[in-house]
């Protein structure tokens, strides 16, 4: 009872702070400071139609690198926690009777979903979307595969190879930015191209493809680790 009332007092205190924040909030009319710079010069400096992509990949590229690192660490910690002994043969993990219709349609749908993911991250600098969303869509395609076609296995070696390759190339492109252009992860190592076409905005499409591959393989790895846990007794 004492505990509950303490929690209640804490929540009420927080609510009072929130309420005062809410009441003192006045919506601003115009962009200020660094956002204004992004909006005014983003087109000339970066050449990406989607300004959010420009901020994520170039202006705040370090944040994204850190984020991808955090995701990588999470995936590896999960893999470490859920160490599955692969020595057990797959014979005793009887494949559950699955629906024929779902299996057949999944075979049609999975390539289309992967294609959609690739489309989303290749066009990340023009339309809403980008590496993270595309990677998540690819990961959900693999989830469909795990559910619908349980007898198919996915090779962890290929996953980790793709992931390491994309992570390494991401950092290498960043270092190339120091050598060829103004600084780390500068996108002007390639020419900016015509504004609004697919091959524009310098290195942004390249970086987003790498991020997409990395995020997709990492999320697939997490889910595949959890899935292999299901079969283990």
């Amino acid at each position, binding site marked *: 009872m004492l505990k509950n009332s303490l929690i209640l007092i804490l929540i009420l205190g927080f609510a009072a702070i929130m309420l005062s924040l809410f009441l003192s909030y006045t919506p601003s009319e115009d962009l200020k400071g660094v956002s204004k710079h992004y909006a005014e010069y983003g087109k000339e400096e970066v050449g990406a139609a989607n300004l959010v992509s420009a901020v994520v990949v170039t202006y705040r590229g370090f944040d994204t690198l850190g984020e991808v690192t955090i995701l990588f660490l999470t995936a590896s910690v999960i893999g470490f926690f859920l160490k599955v002994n692969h020595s057990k043969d797959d014979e005793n993990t009887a494949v559950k009777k699955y*629906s024929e*219709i*779902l299996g057949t*349609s999944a075979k*049609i*749908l999975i390539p*289309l979903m992967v294609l959609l993911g690739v489309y989303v991250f290749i066009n990340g600098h023009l339309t809403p979307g980008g590496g993270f969303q595309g990677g998540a869509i690819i990961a959900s395609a693999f989830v469909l595969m795990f559910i619908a076609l349980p007898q198919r296995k996915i090779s962890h070696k290929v996953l980790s190879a793709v992931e390491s390759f994309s992570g390494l190339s991401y950092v290498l492109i960043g270092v190339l930015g120091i050598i060829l252009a103004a600084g780390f992860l500068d996108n002007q190592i390639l020419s900016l191209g015509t504004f609004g076409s697919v091959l524009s905005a310098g290195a942004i499409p390249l970086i987003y493809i790498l991020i997409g591959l990395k995020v997709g393989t990492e999320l697939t790895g997490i889910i595949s680790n959890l899935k292999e846990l299901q079969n283990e007794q």
Partner: protein
Amino acid sequence: METLKIIGAFIVLAGSIFLFLGSLGMVRMPDLYNRIQAGTKASTLGTILTLSGIIFLSSGWTGKLVILILFVLITNPVSSHILARAAHSVKLKLTDKTVTDKLTEDEELINEKQ
């Protein structure tokens, strides 16, 4: 031009009528299997009719809309099939008026064989 627009508008109207009937079926039907039946059948046809009506209204979107219709045709029946199957496998009750239950008969047949 005008006639095309009128035809398109009528097709969209027909589609929305089917969608409405589908949502009515979700309320009126007695158990989950009938609801899935009503919802999916009517809403698949309704969505396809609505999308193909939009083809008449603005012809520039034809390619995208055809792809959308194909996606609806692939995913909608499969997802409802999986829903019904999952409901059957957790032994959700059928309504009292049910005459035949082929999936249970089939499973019993398989069990007898083993």
